[in-house]
Protein backbone atom coordinates (compact mmCIF):
# COMPACT_ATOMS: atom_id res chain seq x y z
CA UNK A 1 0.00 0.00 0.00
CA UNK A 2 1.12 3.55 -0.74
CA UNK A 3 1.07 6.03 2.16
CA UNK A 4 1.39 9.76 2.59
CA UNK A 5 2.23 10.71 6.17
CA UNK A 6 1.54 14.14 7.67
CA UNK A 7 3.43 15.23 10.80
CA UNK A 8 1.84 18.18 12.60
CA UNK A 9 3.76 18.53 15.86
CA UNK A 10 7.33 19.36 16.78
CA UNK A 11 9.85 16.88 18.17
CA UNK A 12 10.16 16.36 21.97
CA UNK A 13 7.15 18.62 22.72
CA UNK A 14 4.79 15.96 21.40
CA UNK A 15 4.69 12.23 20.68
CA UNK A 16 3.53 12.63 17.08
CA UNK A 17 6.99 12.84 15.54
CA UNK A 18 8.12 9.64 17.32
CA UNK A 19 4.89 7.86 16.38
CA UNK A 20 5.21 8.90 12.74
CA UNK A 21 8.80 7.72 12.43
CA UNK A 22 7.92 4.38 14.08
CA UNK A 23 4.91 3.97 11.78
CA UNK A 24 7.04 4.64 8.71
CA UNK A 25 9.74 2.17 9.78
CA UNK A 26 7.09 -0.50 10.41
CA UNK A 27 5.34 0.20 7.09
CA UNK A 28 8.59 -0.01 5.13
CA UNK A 29 9.54 -3.23 6.91
CA UNK A 30 6.24 -4.74 5.80
CA UNK A 31 6.98 -3.78 2.21
CA UNK A 32 4.69 -0.76 1.93
CA UNK A 33 5.63 2.39 0.04
CA UNK A 34 5.91 5.87 1.57
CA UNK A 35 4.95 8.29 -1.20
CA UNK A 36 5.71 11.40 0.83
CA UNK A 37 6.13 12.72 4.37
CA UNK A 38 4.70 16.22 4.80
CA UNK A 39 5.61 18.37 7.81
CA UNK A 40 3.13 21.07 8.86
CA UNK A 41 2.34 23.32 11.85
CA UNK A 42 5.16 22.90 14.43
CA UNK A 43 6.01 19.64 12.64
CA UNK A 44 8.37 21.72 10.50
CA UNK A 45 10.74 21.78 13.51
CA UNK A 46 11.56 18.14 12.76
CA UNK A 47 13.72 19.51 9.95
CA UNK A 48 16.14 21.72 11.85
CA UNK A 49 19.79 20.67 12.12
CA UNK A 50 20.36 22.90 15.17
CA UNK A 51 18.63 20.77 17.81
CA UNK A 52 20.87 19.60 20.62
CA UNK A 53 18.98 17.44 23.13
CA UNK A 54 20.85 15.94 26.12
CA UNK A 55 23.18 13.12 25.09
CA UNK A 56 21.06 10.34 26.60
CA UNK A 57 18.01 11.36 24.53
CA UNK A 58 17.16 10.51 20.92
CA UNK A 59 17.98 13.07 18.22
CA UNK A 60 14.81 12.94 16.18
CA UNK A 61 15.89 15.27 13.40
CA UNK A 62 18.91 13.05 12.74
CA UNK A 63 16.71 9.94 12.80
CA UNK A 64 14.44 11.52 10.16
CA UNK A 65 17.43 12.57 8.10
CA UNK A 66 18.96 9.08 8.18
CA UNK A 67 15.63 7.41 7.43
CA UNK A 68 15.21 9.67 4.39
CA UNK A 69 18.67 8.80 3.13
CA UNK A 70 18.28 5.07 3.73
CA UNK A 71 14.91 4.78 1.97
CA UNK A 72 15.14 7.71 -0.43
CA UNK A 73 12.05 9.30 1.20
CA UNK A 74 10.45 12.48 -0.15
CA UNK A 75 10.22 14.63 3.01
CA UNK A 76 8.60 18.01 2.50
CA UNK A 77 8.48 20.94 4.91
CA UNK A 78 5.61 23.34 4.21
CA UNK A 79 7.04 26.69 3.16
CA UNK A 80 4.31 28.83 4.75
CA UNK A 81 4.57 27.01 8.11
CA UNK A 82 8.39 27.07 7.89
CA UNK A 83 8.58 30.80 7.24
CA UNK A 84 6.41 31.50 10.30
CA UNK A 85 8.71 29.41 12.48
CA UNK A 86 12.14 30.33 11.14
CA UNK A 87 12.99 27.16 9.19
CA UNK A 88 15.04 28.06 6.11
CA UNK A 89 17.02 26.22 3.48
CA UNK A 90 20.00 27.94 1.86
CA UNK A 91 18.09 28.99 -1.24
CA UNK A 92 15.14 30.45 0.67
CA UNK A 93 17.40 32.22 3.17
CA UNK A 94 19.24 33.88 0.30
CA UNK A 95 15.99 34.87 -1.42
CA UNK A 96 14.71 36.42 1.82
CA UNK A 97 18.01 38.17 2.58
CA UNK A 98 18.55 36.19 5.81
CA UNK A 99 22.00 35.45 7.22
CA UNK A 100 21.53 31.75 8.05
CA UNK A 101 19.79 28.53 7.14
CA UNK A 102 19.02 25.52 9.31
CA UNK A 103 17.53 22.62 7.32
CA UNK A 104 19.01 19.16 7.89
CA UNK A 105 19.81 16.87 4.92
CA UNK A 106 16.89 14.84 3.65
CA UNK A 107 14.21 17.53 3.97
CA UNK A 108 13.21 20.03 1.37
CA UNK A 109 10.89 23.02 1.46
CA UNK A 110 7.86 23.18 -0.80
CA UNK A 111 4.18 24.16 -0.88
CA UNK A 112 0.93 22.78 0.50
CA UNK A 113 0.09 21.44 -2.94
CA UNK A 114 2.53 18.62 -2.16
CA UNK A 115 0.26 17.49 0.69
CA UNK A 116 -2.87 17.51 -1.48
CA UNK A 117 -1.05 15.69 -4.28
CA UNK A 118 0.11 13.13 -1.71
CA UNK A 119 -3.50 12.60 -0.64
CA UNK A 120 -4.59 12.10 -4.23
CA UNK A 121 -1.74 9.77 -5.21
CA UNK A 122 -1.65 7.58 -2.07
CA UNK A 123 -3.94 4.78 -0.94
CA UNK A 124 -3.96 6.16 2.61
CA UNK A 125 -3.06 9.48 4.20
CA UNK A 126 -2.15 9.26 7.88
CA UNK A 127 -2.07 12.34 10.12
CA UNK A 128 0.13 12.38 13.23
CA UNK A 129 -0.82 15.37 15.37
CA UNK A 130 -2.48 16.65 18.49
Amino acid at each position, binding site marked *: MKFTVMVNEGPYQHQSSDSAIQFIRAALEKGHEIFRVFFYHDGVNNGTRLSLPPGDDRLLQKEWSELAKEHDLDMVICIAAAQRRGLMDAKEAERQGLDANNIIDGFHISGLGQL*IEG*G*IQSDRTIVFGD
Partner: protein
Amino acid sequence: MSTKKFMFVNRKAPYGTVYALESLEVVLIAAAFDQDISLAFIDDGVYQITKGQDTTGIGQKNFSNAYKALGDYDISKLYVEKESLAERGLTQDDLMDLVWEDEDDDWAEKPSIIMVDRAEMTAVMAEQEVTLSF
Protein backbone atom coordinates in the same frame (compact mmCIF):
# COMPACT_ATOMS: atom_id res chain seq x y z
CA MET B 1 -5.53 14.29 -11.88
CA SER B 2 -8.22 12.18 -10.23
CA THR B 3 -10.82 13.53 -7.83
CA LYS B 4 -11.02 12.29 -4.28
CA LYS B 5 -13.27 13.06 -1.36
CA PHE B 6 -11.26 15.24 1.04
CA MET B 7 -12.52 16.14 4.51
CA PHE B 8 -10.93 18.74 6.75
CA VAL B 9 -11.86 18.14 10.38
CA ASN B 10 -11.69 21.30 12.48
CA ARG B 11 -11.61 20.57 16.20
CA LYS B 12 -9.98 23.62 17.80
CA ALA B 13 -11.03 27.18 18.63
CA PRO B 14 -9.97 29.80 16.05
CA TYR B 15 -7.48 31.63 18.28
CA GLY B 16 -5.29 30.35 21.10
CA THR B 17 -3.55 27.96 18.72
CA VAL B 18 -2.67 28.26 15.04
CA TYR B 19 -4.44 25.07 13.91
CA ALA B 20 -7.60 26.76 12.57
CA LEU B 21 -5.73 29.38 10.55
CA GLU B 22 -3.29 26.89 9.06
CA SER B 23 -6.12 24.44 8.34
CA LEU B 24 -7.85 27.13 6.31
CA GLU B 25 -4.66 27.63 4.30
CA VAL B 26 -4.67 23.92 3.37
CA VAL B 27 -8.37 24.05 2.43
CA LEU B 28 -7.79 26.94 0.03
CA ILE B 29 -4.88 25.13 -1.66
CA ALA B 30 -6.95 21.93 -1.92
CA ALA B 31 -9.69 23.90 -3.69
CA ALA B 32 -7.22 24.67 -6.49
CA PHE B 33 -6.82 20.91 -7.10
CA ASP B 34 -10.53 20.47 -8.00
CA GLN B 35 -11.17 17.90 -5.29
CA ASP B 36 -14.51 17.02 -3.65
CA ILE B 37 -14.05 18.97 -0.43
CA SER B 38 -16.01 18.91 2.82
CA LEU B 39 -15.27 20.58 6.13
CA ALA B 40 -16.35 19.25 9.51
CA PHE B 41 -16.66 21.42 12.61
CA ILE B 42 -16.68 19.49 15.87
CA ASP B 43 -15.73 20.15 19.51
CA ASP B 44 -14.27 23.68 19.94
CA GLY B 45 -13.95 23.82 16.14
CA VAL B 46 -17.52 25.16 16.00
CA TYR B 47 -16.21 28.47 17.39
CA GLN B 48 -14.30 28.99 14.12
CA ILE B 49 -17.51 29.94 12.30
CA THR B 50 -19.28 31.92 15.01
CA LYS B 51 -20.56 35.43 14.23
CA GLY B 52 -19.08 38.64 15.55
CA GLN B 53 -15.50 37.54 16.14
CA ASP B 54 -13.39 40.45 17.41
CA THR B 55 -9.66 40.00 17.94
CA THR B 56 -8.72 43.60 18.78
CA GLY B 57 -7.98 42.65 22.39
CA ILE B 58 -5.49 39.89 21.56
CA GLY B 59 -3.47 41.52 18.78
CA GLN B 60 -4.11 38.74 16.27
CA LYS B 61 -5.51 38.85 12.77
CA ASN B 62 -9.26 38.20 12.58
CA PHE B 63 -9.49 35.68 9.74
CA SER B 64 -13.16 34.77 10.16
CA ASN B 65 -14.11 36.53 6.89
CA ALA B 66 -12.09 33.90 5.02
CA TYR B 67 -14.81 31.33 5.81
CA LYS B 68 -17.29 33.53 3.92
CA ALA B 69 -15.08 33.24 0.82
CA LEU B 70 -15.13 29.42 0.80
CA GLY B 71 -18.25 29.42 -1.41
CA ASP B 72 -16.29 31.31 -4.08
CA TYR B 73 -13.86 28.37 -4.14
CA ASP B 74 -16.74 25.90 -4.73
CA ILE B 75 -16.51 24.66 -1.15
CA SER B 76 -20.15 24.22 -0.22
CA LYS B 77 -20.29 21.41 2.37
CA LEU B 78 -19.60 22.58 5.91
CA TYR B 79 -20.84 19.91 8.32
CA VAL B 80 -21.46 21.21 11.85
CA GLU B 81 -22.07 18.77 14.68
CA LYS B 82 -25.23 19.62 16.63
CA GLU B 83 -23.99 18.11 19.89
CA SER B 84 -20.82 20.20 19.81
CA LEU B 85 -22.89 23.38 19.48
CA ALA B 86 -25.31 22.34 22.23
CA GLU B 87 -22.52 21.38 24.65
CA ARG B 88 -21.19 24.94 24.32
CA GLY B 89 -24.56 26.66 24.69
CA LEU B 90 -24.58 27.65 21.02
CA THR B 91 -27.24 27.36 18.32
CA GLN B 92 -27.07 27.75 14.55
CA ASP B 93 -28.09 31.41 15.05
CA ASP B 94 -24.66 32.00 16.59
CA LEU B 95 -22.95 30.91 13.36
CA MET B 96 -22.13 33.06 10.33
CA ASP B 97 -24.47 32.80 7.35
CA LEU B 98 -22.16 30.95 5.01
CA VAL B 99 -23.41 30.48 1.45
CA TRP B 100 -22.35 29.31 -1.98
CA GLU B 101 -23.75 30.09 -5.44
CA ASP B 102 -25.15 27.14 -7.40
CA GLU B 103 -24.23 27.63 -11.06
CA ASP B 104 -26.66 24.87 -12.08
CA ASP B 105 -29.54 26.82 -10.49
CA ASP B 106 -29.02 30.32 -11.97
CA TRP B 107 -26.38 31.10 -9.34
CA ALA B 108 -28.90 30.90 -6.52
CA GLU B 109 -27.36 31.48 -3.09
CA LYS B 110 -27.62 28.36 -0.95
CA PRO B 111 -26.54 27.68 2.63
CA SER B 112 -23.19 25.91 3.05
CA ILE B 113 -23.76 24.86 6.64
CA ILE B 114 -25.21 21.37 7.04
CA MET B 115 -26.29 20.55 10.58
CA VAL B 116 -25.70 16.91 11.48
CA ASP B 117 -25.83 14.91 14.67
CA ARG B 118 -22.90 12.83 15.88
CA ALA B 119 -24.10 9.62 14.19
CA GLU B 120 -24.64 11.43 10.87
CA MET B 121 -21.18 13.01 11.12
CA THR B 122 -19.72 9.53 11.57
CA ALA B 123 -21.45 8.41 8.38
CA VAL B 124 -20.15 11.42 6.40
CA MET B 125 -16.62 10.78 7.69
CA ALA B 126 -16.82 7.12 6.71
CA GLU B 127 -17.43 8.14 3.07
CA GLN B 128 -14.22 10.18 2.84
CA GLU B 129 -11.05 9.08 1.09
CA VAL B 130 -8.64 11.59 2.61
CA THR B 131 -9.33 12.98 6.09
CA LEU B 132 -7.04 15.66 7.46
CA SER B 133 -7.57 16.48 11.11
CA PHE B 134 -6.70 19.84 12.65
